[in-house]
């Protein structure tokens, strides 16, 4: 089977599983427990987060530790836009408001991605990782000082100063209160599909190959005329915009939301999804984001040890996939299975021969 066919099958399976899962959730919706139902939209958000972070980590090969920052930008811009449309323009249509809010979240997070990407992508490796972490924390710190209110059709912004006319939409460290919950599971499903189309089609295109080239060998990529910063930027900004979409949906799923919700820990959480699903593996990200979001809900005792287990899994995953000894072990194992299969087939042959004679 050639690589092109393999990619096609992989993409079809990925889309198939997502669509099937969506249908099953709809069919068995009434059988689900309340807490599981409540998890459906967050799961969609985390899947989008994981797939989009995988674009940066797996495809462009840079470790971003500030992904939750982009999510929070998306969340709060989505909340502000939705509140503003409702208060200032009396837009009652929830679906339309949700679409506009998500689009706004994507655009604003994308712009933030550009602004942050310009300095960040000049760095490499560990420095890049630590600076994305720093930006994530700066975003949270700054959001703690931002006040936004809607006074009729006009939007007022305050920094550190909470005295604004009209209805407060964003209240500094107290975040957003009294948000109209307009997020739906169908919207979450559509977001996942959009994300998959963007990410998978991007990977299998000229742009995606250029991004992967910068990951595999920066200097070789430059020597064939690929602008490394430009393509790292495309991956980074696309990922930020997708995280912004997920954030907007997430924000509009709760009646209150504080900036402290998007601490550095959340970025690590998404990183865990990506690593455990297999770096660069989109379907893996989807599955691990789903399983690791549901599991703590299902098993209370698990949730106490959740981060501990994640930490151990992170380390084990890295040790198993990156050390020469482990690699040799897997190759041996593969060989062992192959030998076993061979022996079986030989035995089967002999068996056949035996009965015939």
């Amino acid at each position, binding site marked *: 089977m*050639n*690589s*092109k066919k393999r990619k096609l099958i992989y993409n079809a399976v990925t889309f198939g599983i997502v669509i099937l899962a969506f249908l099953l959730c709809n069919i068995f919706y009434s059988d689900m427990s309340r807490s599981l139902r409540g998890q459906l939209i967050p799961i969609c958000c985390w899947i989008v987060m994981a797939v989009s972070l995988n674009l940066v980590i797996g495809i462009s090969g840079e470790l971003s530790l500030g992904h939750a920052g982009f999510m929070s930008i998306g969340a709060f811009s989505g909340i502000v836009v939705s509140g503003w449309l409702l208060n200032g323009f009396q837009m009652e249509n929830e679906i339309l408001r949700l679409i506009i809010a998500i689009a706004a979240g994507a655009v604003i997070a994308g712009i933030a991605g550009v602004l942050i990407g310009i300095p960040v992508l000049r760095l490499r490796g560990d420095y890049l990782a630590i600076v994305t972490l720093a930006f994530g924390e700066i975003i949270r710190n700054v959001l703690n000082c931002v006040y936004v209110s809607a006074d009729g059709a006009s939007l007022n912004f305050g920094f550190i100063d909470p005295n604004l006319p009209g209805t407060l939409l964003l209240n500094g460290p107290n975040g957003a209160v009294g948000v109209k919950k307009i997020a739906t599971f169908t919207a979450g499903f559509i977001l996942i599909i959009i994300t998959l*189309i*963007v990410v998978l*089609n*991007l990977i*299998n*295109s*000229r*742009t*995606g*190959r*250029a991004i*992967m*080239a910068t990951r*595999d*060998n920066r*200097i*070789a*990529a*430059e*020597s*064939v*005329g*690929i*602008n*490394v910063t430009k393509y790292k930027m*495309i991956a980074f900004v696309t990922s930020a915009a997708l995280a912004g979409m997920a954030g907007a949906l997430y924000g509009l799923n709760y009646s209150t939301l504080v900036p402290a919700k998007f601490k550095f820990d959340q970025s690590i959480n998404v990183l865990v999804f990506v690593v455990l699903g297999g770096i660069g593996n989109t379907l893996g990200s989807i599955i691990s984001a789903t399983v690791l979001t549901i599991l703590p809900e299902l098993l209370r005792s698990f949730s106490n040890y959740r981060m501990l287990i994640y930490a151990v899994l992170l380390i084990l995953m890295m040790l198993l996939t990156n050390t020469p000894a482990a690699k040799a072990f897997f190759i041996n194992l593969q060989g062992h299975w192959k030998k076993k299969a061979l022996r079986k087939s030989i035995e089967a042959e002999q068996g056949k021969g035996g009965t015939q004679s």
Partner: protein
Amino acid sequence: MTVRIQKRNQDTKMVPVPSESIIPERDLGKLPVLECKHLGIDFGGLTAVEDFNLTIGKTEIAGLIGPNGAGKTTVFNLLTKVYEPTRGTVMINGIDTHGMDIVQASKLGIARTFQNIRLFSKMSVEDNVRIGLHNQIKYNMFSGILRLPSYWKREKQQHEKALELLSIFGMQDMADMQAGSLPYGAQRRLEIVRALATNPSLLLLDEPAAGMNPHETQELMDNIIKIRDQFQIAVLLIEHDMNLVMGICEGICVLNYGKIIAKGTAEDIQSNPVVIEAYLGKQKEAQA
């Protein structure tokens, strides 16, 4: 030492042009592909390359030789703008590359291979070549995401062109293999194909025959000449295999301690006492 001078193909003009070229009476009809003047670079006080002058005409095969540490790869890095020279100028196709980066130099028509192979080893052989075609067969990101007609059209073009380029070395059957899993020689050849995909006017080969057996080297020599004739490009190569250098290079430039110590044809170089001294040490010492 076996010396084998290949006959040039017929249709190239032989116009004498006054230049720094090693063999002046060649086809520098229009502009030289590469023109270096007084090129030099210092690394924190240490002069790695000094007063490097070289001109390469269209469809010339030139060799850059010298003992280890002479600064040959540094010259390549200066030509491809990995390093910005401290002194002097590099002109590619008549355009001064001052202040340019690697990407801009590549777009001007300079392509290279690396001494320690630098492939996109996790990707397929075909994808490696397609990445080389990045600036040749283009479509924008959105046609890629939305799968617009231009995506399908250009992807098909890229696929066909990639196979065509791979067939130079008879590698079209390996298109689906992972680049990193290829045998060493095939990896070196793939690097050349990838460089050719960028449609260069000057191809820099950094030790293309390293690790190859005599048979493979002979094949490589034939292929370099074939490439030059087919694509009408100039080639500058670094090589320690003297059979290859003396066999196909029309002009040879010898570098030692960052300075050019000799220039000329294979015969000139082989009989040049300065070159012999650089490689073997002084005659007296050798005898003693």
